[in-house]
């Protein structure tokens, strides 16, 4: 291949409408720069002769038999190309709309793109869709290549007509190509060599345009974003592993983890076979750190510096493209993934469908079908940390998983303040300022044989909430656990004595106080068993407030009803009908074990499955 020594990598994707010449351009680029392996060109030419068909440069990379027979690219091919000290991975994306998911997979890992438009056919459906998707996928560097100029007599006016039309389209969503280049891929005009047939064009060739693309380095200059990928304990070290998606970190840095609001300082940066020992890391790197304090942090949290925290909410607005086999539906649940965070979410509203042909918008649809782009609101089951995609790339985008498949992707355009915003802010401020003693939660858990947790029982009147709560407390204590029944009635006459009864605003203030008391008890390491009795019919709202305030202590939400009814969202266990309290108690104990609150064996010092 090329003799150049490469010092840098650049991922390029070639997109555009089917048959506009993407695969041909790629083949030509390799052929004209002498980048094909020995004999490859001759071999493919010979096969074509043998089969009696015309040689196509596209055959060089359309490796599947089916692709060659049908003359189309089905899936993206990664090809490698060295030029002037840079190693390019060029991805040839399929242009056929049936294979849009493959085009998107190719484009999503690109740092720059070439977008092809056939001079004879002009701007087509996929030319527009691909242009729009590049912008949605965050590929901001791209050149437009107007191909097949040989078919229009190399005419400047045809080229300029397409340039004008396409620029106007791109301008509607603020995209701006670096270059627009007239070429003939088949004949090699302006690919690697300057065209003799288009003296009117003075700009760069495609090869020049590739060299002019910049490697994006700015991410390291942004505020820190370090999403936790995993927590390892292979040896004495407890290592938080992950990839820094923005900014830098170094030993001694004070980190805040969102949404749990846990904090600690970086003690070491761990690596295998690296000398000298690392003291810092920056965007793009997969690193491992240890902390000066054993705090409970899980995959999915985002570590940042305290000055530039990410957003935290349960809801956001987004632009999404859908690739799923079945349509996305309003009201349905999907798995949401933001970097390493996975949480169940619901499509709260589909605001509009965007037609990528003319960017017209259609409202009132309750579904988004395959290959459509939509503006919608997602609501997650638990608060998550994220950013707006306009400020951070990686933490500002997400995918939705339907069944077993990634079925859609999108970018976050707006945070939606949910009704928990005020309480969440209170919890954040309180946690940041929390004065800790010498005893950490891990030590407490080791001593007690379990972790702290809140068992929160909701339900209407006379469903047996208090009875179950008492039974559960008794059983836990009999088993040697440290449990305490926090009955709301006990706060009412004391802590809440200054509140007037029965007013709604007051109920919410009661819930707030109740939540803060539960938070305190949980910090002592107790399993707090509680009911929402004092809140009457506002129990669902009260339960939500309590959850927000005690976060990230695990909350096991139990709902009881006499008749089958719609349980509140997020209930972990639902008991309906006449209750068998012993069975219910056992069921809750199982859940506590499953969640890692109770170690499996009583008496033994616990070894918890989940990392802290």
């Amino acid at each position, binding site marked *: 291949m090329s003799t150049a020594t490469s010092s840098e990598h650049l991922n390029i994707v070639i997109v555009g409408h089917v048959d506009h010449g993407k695969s041909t351009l790629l083949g030509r680029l390799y052929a004209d720069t002498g980048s094909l392996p020995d004999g490859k060109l001759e071999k493919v030419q010979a096969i074509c002769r043998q089969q009696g068909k015309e040689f196509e440069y596209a055959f060089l990379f359309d490796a599947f038999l089916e692709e060659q027979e049908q003359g189309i690219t089905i899936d993206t091919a990664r090809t490698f190309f060295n030029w002037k000290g840079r190693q390019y991975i060029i991805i040839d994306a399929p242009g056929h709309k049936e294979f849009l998911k493959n085009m998107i997979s190719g484009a999503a890992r690109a740092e720059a793109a070439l977008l092809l438009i056939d001079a004879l056919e002009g701007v087509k459906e996929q030319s527009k869709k691909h242009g729009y998707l590049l912008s949605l996928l965050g590929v901001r560097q791209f050149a437009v290549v107007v191909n097949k100029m040989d078919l229009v007599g190399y005419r400047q006016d045809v080229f300029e007509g397409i340039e004008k039309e396409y620029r106007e389209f791109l301008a509607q969503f603020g995209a701006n190509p670096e270059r627009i280049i007239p070429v003939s891929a088949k004949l090699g005009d302006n690919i690697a060599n300057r065209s003799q047939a288009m003296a009117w064009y003075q700009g760069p060739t495609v090869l020049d345009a590739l060299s002019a693309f910049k490697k994006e380095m700015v991410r390291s200059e942004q505020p820190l974003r370090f999403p936790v990928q995993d927590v390892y304990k292979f040896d004495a070290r407890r290592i938080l592993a992950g*990839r820094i998606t923005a900014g830098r970190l170094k030993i001694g840095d004070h980190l805040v983890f969102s949404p749990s609001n846990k904090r600690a300082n970086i003690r070491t940066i761990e690596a295998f076979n690296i000398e000298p020992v690392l003291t810092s890391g920056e965007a793009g790197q997969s690193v491992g750190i240890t902390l000066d304090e054993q705090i409970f942090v899980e995959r999915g949290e985002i570590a940042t510096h305290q000055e530039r925290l990410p957003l935290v909410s349960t809801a956001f607005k987004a632009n999404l493209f859908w690739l799923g086999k079945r349509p996305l539906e309003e009201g349905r649940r999907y798995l949401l993934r933001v970097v390493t965070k996975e949480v169940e979410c619901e499509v709260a509203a589909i605001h509009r469908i965007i037609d990528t042909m003319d960017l017209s918008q259609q409202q009132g649809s309750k579904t988004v079908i395959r290959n459509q782009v939509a503006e919608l609101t997602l609501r997650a089951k638990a608060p998550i940390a994220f950013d707006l995609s306009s400020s951070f790339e990686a933490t500002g985008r997400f995918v939705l998983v339907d*069944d077993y498949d990634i079925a859609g992707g999108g970018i976050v355009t707006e945070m939606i303040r949910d009704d928990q915003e005020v309480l969440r802010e209170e919890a954040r401020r309180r946690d940041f300022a929390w004065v800790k003693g010498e005893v950490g939660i891990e030590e407490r858990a080791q001593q007690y044989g379990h972790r702290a947790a809140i068992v929160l029982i909701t339900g209407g009147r006379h469903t047996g909430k208090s009875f179950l709560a008492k039974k559960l407390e008794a059983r836990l204590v009999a088993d040697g656990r440290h449990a305490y029944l926090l009955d709301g009635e006990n706060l009412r006459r004391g802590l809440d004595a200054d509140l007037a009864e029965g007013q709604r605003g007051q109920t919410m203030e009661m819930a707030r106080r109740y939540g803060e008391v539960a938070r305190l008890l949980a910090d002592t390491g107790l399993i707090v068993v509680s009911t929402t009795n004092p809140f009457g019919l506002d129990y669902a709202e009260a339960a939500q407030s309590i959850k927000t305030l005690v976060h990230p202590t695990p909350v096991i939400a139990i709902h009881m009803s006499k008749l089958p009814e719609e349980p509140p969202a997020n209930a972990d266990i639902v008991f309906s009908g006449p209750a068998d309290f012993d069975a219910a108690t056992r069921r809750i104990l199982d859940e506590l074990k499953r969640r890692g609150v109770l170690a499996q064996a009583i008496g033994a010092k616990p070894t918890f499955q989940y990392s802290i």
Partner: protein
Amino acid sequence: MKHLRQLEDQSVYILREAYKHFDNLAMLWSMGKDSTVLLWLARKAFFGHVPFPLLHVDTSYKIPAMIEYRDRLAREWHLNLVVGQNKDALAAGMNHTLGRVTCCTALKTNGLKQLLEQKGYTGVILGVRADEEGTRAKERYFSPRDKHGDWDFRDQPPELWDQFKTTFPPGTHIRIHPLLDWTEINIWEYIKLENIPFIDLYLNKGDGTRYRSLGCAPCTTPIKSTASTVDDIIEELRHTTVAERSGRAQDEGRGMELLRKDGYM
């Protein structure tokens, strides 16, 4: 060097995703340069540990030096080595003279399938690279295989940013390819940078030949080369225009597409 670290960062990220999502995970190790770099990257990702078994599908036709090297590293690096073999096929006398595709299918593809089935692995990490040959260029980092271990390349799952396909129906499994973006030169540059121990069959030891790609003894031929150090190899590769697998018989015709569709690595 920076570009090697970029490749390393991506591969490590993929390995950690694999480890997080698959309870029953294993890595294929053929002792060749690629899968040994992959093994090294696992030690990078997990800070000196390799928290899953390494599978070797032994065709019994491997070059003996490869087996010695395998057992030595397994000892020194505390590897959990699992060796599988299609004993029935061997007992029935399978060898390359019965046809290369037939032999590869029986001893490697089916040997692997048997091993996966026996152990119930749901995630298998492999060191295939996109620049090796055309069908591998079209692979995903996380690539599903159906109940029969077959690859449906017509309908591959989307792969967006660093989000991969990590959920799958029972009975199927996922192939994980952390080295897709690496080229042959990158592999050697990295071996040099990290000083990774490799089999000396890759070097010329005076007779003017060396192996560029290692497979079974009968189906792999050495190339003419004077390269006797890693630096020599890197220098040689910078100037060569001969395909890496030109010494591998299975790549002839449509051999590789057919093999890989049926679950070959």
